[in-house]
């Protein structure tokens, strides 16, 4: 099994450095928010994690489509790898959102369209994995995974819009009346910079983890093949 390519090693270091810088920006560079206080700092990574969850899902859908067209198993491996990482970050998004909501709106859960959509996305990921688990034949597993990945991804923006439309008619009593505001606060330029930097850092974290996870998948298959060879020899 080929050793870690130099590009990946470089990426590791770059991502780690950026992460440290992001922590600095979030804790020290960005000012404390005037009303909510320190908990607002969670927002930077909360949104970035949500962003990664959505990007990962998109990658899974596209990867599945390419697999259906080309039938090269590497695309299916990419899809599964992206699902795993997406699940982790969607989970982070949901829980950090809940923790942020508690002191700000005095509730652990707000039926905010973004939070609800993130939860639905997580459930779809889970369903995706359960579908794959229930199929024996690897080719069929990959095909079905690809189809569900595409179908489910298309449903997510529609779900988001329907929940938002729902909220414009039934504004929730807690929080502001505007259904699109999620913990409305004005972002000073420093906050905006910290926010953009976090987004960039998390995107790179996603790419790095994805590459590692794909390598893991390839290695797993390689080991399986070797094992098969040995037992059938």
């Amino acid at each position: 099994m080929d050793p870690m390519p130099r590009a990946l090693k470089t990426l590791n270091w770059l991502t780690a450095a950026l992460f440290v810088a992001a922590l600095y920006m979030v804790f020290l560079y960005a000012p404390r928010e005037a009303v909510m206080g320190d908990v607002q700092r969670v927002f930077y990574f909360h949104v970035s994690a949500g962003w990664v969850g959505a990007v990962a899902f998109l990658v899974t859908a596209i990867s599945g489509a390419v697999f259906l067209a080309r039938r090269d198993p590497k695309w299916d491996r990419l899809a599964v790898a992206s699902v795993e990482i997406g699940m982790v970050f969607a989970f982070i998004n949901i829980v950090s959102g809940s923790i942020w909501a508690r002191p700000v709106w005095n509730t652990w859960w707000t039926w905010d369209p973004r939070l609800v959509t993130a939860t639905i996305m997580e459930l779809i990921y889970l369903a995706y994995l359960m579908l794959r688990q229930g199929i024996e034949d690897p080719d069929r597993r990959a095909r079905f995974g690809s189809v569900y990945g595409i179908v489910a991804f298309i449903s997510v923006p529609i779900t988001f819009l329907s929940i938002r439309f729902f909220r414009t008619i039934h504004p929730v009593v807690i929080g502001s009346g505007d259904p699109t505001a999620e913990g409305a606060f004005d972002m000073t330029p420093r906050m905006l910079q910290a926010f953009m930097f976090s987004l960039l850092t998390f995107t790179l974290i996603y790419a790095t983890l994805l590459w590692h996870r794909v390598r893991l998948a390839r290695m797993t298959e390689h080991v399986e093949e070797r094992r098969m060879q040995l037992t059938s020899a």
Partner: protein
Amino acid sequence: MPEALATPYSARRDRPVAGYLRAIAAIVRKDLAAELRSRELLGAMLVFSLLLILIFNFALELDARTRQTVTAGVLWSTFAFAGTLGLNRSMALEVDRGCLDGLLLAPVDRSALFFGKALGNLVFMLLVAAIILPAYSALYNVNLFLPGLMGVVLLGSIGYVVVGTLLSSMAVQARTRDILLPLLLFPVVLPVVIAAVKATSGLLQAAPPEEIQGWINLLIAYDVIFTAVAFMTFDYIVEE
């Protein structure tokens, strides 16, 4: 084997659209005929729906006041759950009796198979609705016979059945086939449930028409988008 699929290939090639539509009709007729004989599917869906309404009656305190706000939700929850029964059974029968393999051998476009099954499922769902709506009306003295409401039931059922047929054709081939379909279906079909409930509720409570129109537009958009998606992806599910 349905007669439509036994016509000589040359004849079908000369009039492809007619052949396509005839194939769909043949599949729907097959499903309806089989169901007429055994009635197991419709019976199960109907009994299940009535039981659900019974449960909701006690779970939700459907007194005269709350009934107005809650009727739409009860109806669509019932349709959603009873619908999975129908979808599961319909596809399972196909696979277990080996019909699916037979149909796949027929020289028709795979999508005709999909539309045939989906149409059959839609008919079943509408039949169940045709009995549940009057039953609910009678039990709770709510007038459900508004033309707009019929339209919403139709649009919602179409969206539900299109995605449901697509996903059940996958779920039925998994080991965990029965519990898998709801898990796959419900998150994806949520916009239909939301829009259908809000549109129904709006019609029952005489909400402003722009509001209801918004939900109906959403239903139509969903139906169009997912019919297209299903049309494009069904081939990949049944290729063998």
